[in-house]
């Protein structure tokens, strides 16, 4: 709800504002470790990425850490080892399908700054309950241009009431980056009842694609009538909700109207690492974008 409001009011301001690139001079921070991954109960193999941080304006990509020892340990002390694949990505070699309600601990051991000392970074997460997603509906509507409201119907999720969504159009993930993911704090809805028609996002009709600026075309999602659009929904804990929210808020710097001062994104990994290890439990539902009457 608040996201919609921000989009709406920022559109008003966007009409007035212009941008131009500038050079700013900042001190570069020393190298640190950044770790990111999701422990996904809907998958039988898990992965994380381990990289070094880099000066913000560096033209070089963040350097991958290739020689880390990465393990995941269940609360029953079962251990899985993740092997390096490429580009900083580590993947379980054995099958690991995390169980709902169980806790798992990630451990990354590496000498990221070549000081001869192997540093240890750990994080523990709990697999959330599966969302009781019954169906999704796409309702034709209009907000200046034709739109389709994605509306979900689901049972009471209980527990912490934070969720995230990803969308696929005809099988292709159309929200591949973290900044595209949708999150919701559904505290506004009945605590002890089904969610019957929760608006979660809207898609613009692709027929108006050319009426949007390049940036808007990058930011918004477009669909055609007849497309099969799938929602992937997971309940998440508040920590992961905050992390995604902070990433999306901080990605482009401070917002002088609706945001506070720029601040560092809070991690759940210890020992000074950046990033997050989240736990998800996805469920999918699909429906067809209807023809507009």
């Amino acid at each position: 709800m608040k996201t919609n409001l921000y989009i709406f009011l920022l559109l008003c301001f966007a009409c007035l504002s212009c941008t131009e690139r500038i050079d700013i001079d900042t001190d570069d921070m020393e190298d640190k470790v950044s770790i990111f991954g999701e422990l996904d109960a809907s998958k039988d193999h898990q992965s994380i990425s381990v990289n070094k941080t880099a000066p913000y304006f560096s033209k070089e990509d963040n350097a991958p850490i290739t020689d880390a020892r990465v393990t995941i340990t269940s609360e029953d002390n079962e251990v899985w080892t993740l092997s390096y694949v490429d580009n900083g990505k580590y993947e379980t070699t054995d099958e690991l399908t995390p169980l709902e309600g169980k806790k798992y601990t990630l451990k990354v051991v590496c000498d990221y700054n070549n000081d001869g000392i192997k540093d240890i970074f750990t994080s523990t997460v709990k697999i959330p309950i599966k969302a009781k997603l019954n169906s999704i509906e796409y309702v034709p509507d209009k907000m200046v241009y034709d739109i389709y409201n994605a509306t979900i119907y689901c049972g009471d999720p209980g527990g912490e009431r934070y969720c995230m969504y990803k969308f696929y159009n005809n099988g292709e993930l159309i929200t591949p980056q973290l900044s595209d993911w949708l999150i919701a704090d559904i505290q506004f809805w009945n605590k002890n009842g089904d969610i019957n028609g929760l608006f979660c996002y809207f898609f613009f009709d692709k027929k108006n694609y050319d009426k949007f600026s390049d940036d808007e075309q990058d930011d918004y999602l477009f669909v055609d009538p007849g497309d099969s659009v799938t929602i992937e929904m997971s309940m998440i804990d508040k920590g992961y909700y905050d992390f995604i929210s902070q990433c999306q808020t901080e990605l482009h710097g401070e917002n002088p109207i609706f945001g506070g001062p720029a601040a560092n994104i809070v991690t759940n990994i210890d020992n000074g690492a950046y990033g997050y290890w989240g736990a998800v439990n996805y469920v999918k539902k699909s429906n067809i974008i209807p023809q507009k009457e």
Partner: protein
Amino acid sequence: MKKVKIRNVVSRRPDKDKKCFVFSLICFFILSNFYSLNCNAENIDNTTAKDSIVQLSGRVMNMNKEPLIGATVYFKEVNKGVITDDNGKFYLKLRNGLYTVEVSYVGKSKVFKLNTRKEHNPIFKIEDNTNLDEVIVTADREDKNVTSLNIGAHNVSLSSISKMPQMMGEVDVVKAIQLLPGVQPTSDGGAGFSVRGGGSDQNLILLDNSTIYNASHILGLFSVFNNDVIKGADLYKGDMPMRFGGRLSSLLQIHTKDELVPKFTMNGGIGLLASRLTIESPIGEKTSIIVGGRRSYADLFLKMDKDHKDDDLYFYDANIKVLHKFSNKNILEFNGYIGKDLFGMGGVQTCYYGNSTISLIWKKIFSDSFSMNLGSNMSHYGYGLESNLKNSEMKWKADITDYSGFINFLNLVGDKMELNYGITGTFHLFNPGIVTQPKYDDFQLPKRNALEYSFYIENKHHITSHFSAKYGLRVTSYNNVGKGLIYNFDENHNFTDSIQHNSGVYNTYVRVEPRIGLVYQLNETSSLKADYVHNVQFMQIANNSSAGSPLDMWFCAGPNVKPQEADIFSVGYFRNFKENMYEASCELYYRKVKNGIDFADHAELLLNKKMEGELRIGSGKAYGLELMVRKNSGNLTGFINYTLSRSTRKAEEINDGKEYLTPYDRTHCINMCASYKLNPKSTISATFIYSTGSPTTYPVGRMKIGDEYYPIYSKRNEYRKPSYNRLDLAWTYNLSYNKKRKWKDEITFSIYNVYNHHNAWTISYDSDETGPYAEKVYLFGLLPSITYNFKF
């Protein structure tokens, strides 16, 4: 001696601005001393006069020898004033002597010398004000800069505002206020302002005694004050009149016109963005009414585009004032204001916000030495968001309402003391938000009520002819009353439990605010001033951004939130030149804040029932130097001012508990504003602004998630945005000069940001195939405008 002393003081300043600070001071004092050689001070001292009492019977007329009703006649040496009656006459008992008399009438004032030994029936002639280009509103003495007991106080005249270059042609008193020394806009083009390093919510903004909680139209591009209905504005930086309180930084009083009008007049203007119309009319002999309104019309153009024909984008405001003078000593006035902004997108989503106020004030002069002001008022600010998206119908509303009353007495005790005392009380109703949806329960943030009342007494004491003081106390009791759900938090700001209060007073803060001011008049043209004030603030905005938004909602002190308190020390040297044609001042201030409120990193402030858990309490300080030179009369008028300042905060958990710059810190700021009358028909004016860039937090590193780079930031406000500078120009042409017609009109051409400097509103970050980069987001490039103003 003075120079040496000040140099010694500043030599202990460790910061890098020391050289500039010293240089500025030296320049100022050299300038002062240079001028002092050329000025002949005429010192009139009537306090030693032992002559007998004389009954004066005088008259005030215009140049056509018509009596002026309601003109103010002020005798400087004895601080006494009277108002002319229906025949333009006035009566006053005085000791015989030589007096400086200032006569003011609807925007015009003139100073006369009067020797009562020779003249008992003076006739003062003064121009009355009928031309559009001759509006100078001041009820102040011309040497107020020197003689006033206030430090850090400014009066903004209508003439200076109306001749200033304006963005999109809309004359704006708040934009004029932002040009004063020590005052900064909180964002480019915004209506919010910071005074001496304080937040925008630390300013009390009053329109005819009623609080305006959000003074902006169109997200801050314009203020809510219609220049056609206002008489002027007074800004008090820290040291506000004793009757007022509740804010740490300043009081901005906007006064609407308060004179009986002799005939029906209409004035207005047509601009690119909005038009306005104001009607003033007498109703009988003792009553007059002013009704004014503005309305923007961007939405009318939107409707020409078929894609936006259902969109709405407008603001409007309306003022009404009814003034009834039972006599010149018994006046009743009613004021009303309503304003609204609305943004609507295709009839699907709508956002609106607005203020409304009403006030009723009774002014009664019982005798030459005793008068009373009694009043009550209501203020309301609210916003709403409505969504009609299918399956997502929703209404979100929030508001704050105040019901206030006051009684104020002014008692002159002898010739030397002026006692001001009274009571004020306000009942605040906070409704921080309710969300209603057809399918679900309402989501209501906890409402709060508070009763705030104050007793105050102040004495302005003219101890000798050269030395005056004001001193007083304000005692305020702030009570949380009625129903209130209070959430409690542990030392880590985690929610622990809640308490539901259902009635009565469940929390009280009593605070004493002493205020003292001294002025030592070195001679008729210069003075030294000093003051100390202690201000307390019981309510503040839940907003963490620098610019502010329409969704800002106020929250009050309570069991978890202590009142913010500030100790403010100021000293100043004030000097006028060439019979008050030039005014100069140099002020130094130091401000220390206790229980200062900031918000946690990533604070969730909207629709958060446990918002108080996001507060981080700390301390703050600000200090600075303000230099100002103003030219008040002649073809060339205007001012230049320079501010050197610093503003810092320190709060738990923010910036690792270390001190950091506030968003309102500007090391250097220069404002120049000049207006030159080319001929009776044409006036050109210019405004130039330079300030150090505002503090900001830049990324110093990045982490990679997927294909995106997420910034890792520096310490809070460790860097600064690029400096801000802008030049605006305007040309006003009087179309009706020398034409014998009732219809007076003029046209103003303005260019905002003449050299199209792209001032950073914010810095954003993005990346492309070459890697991350920074972008400057700016709001206004070169912006020409044209406005047509009329009056008849």
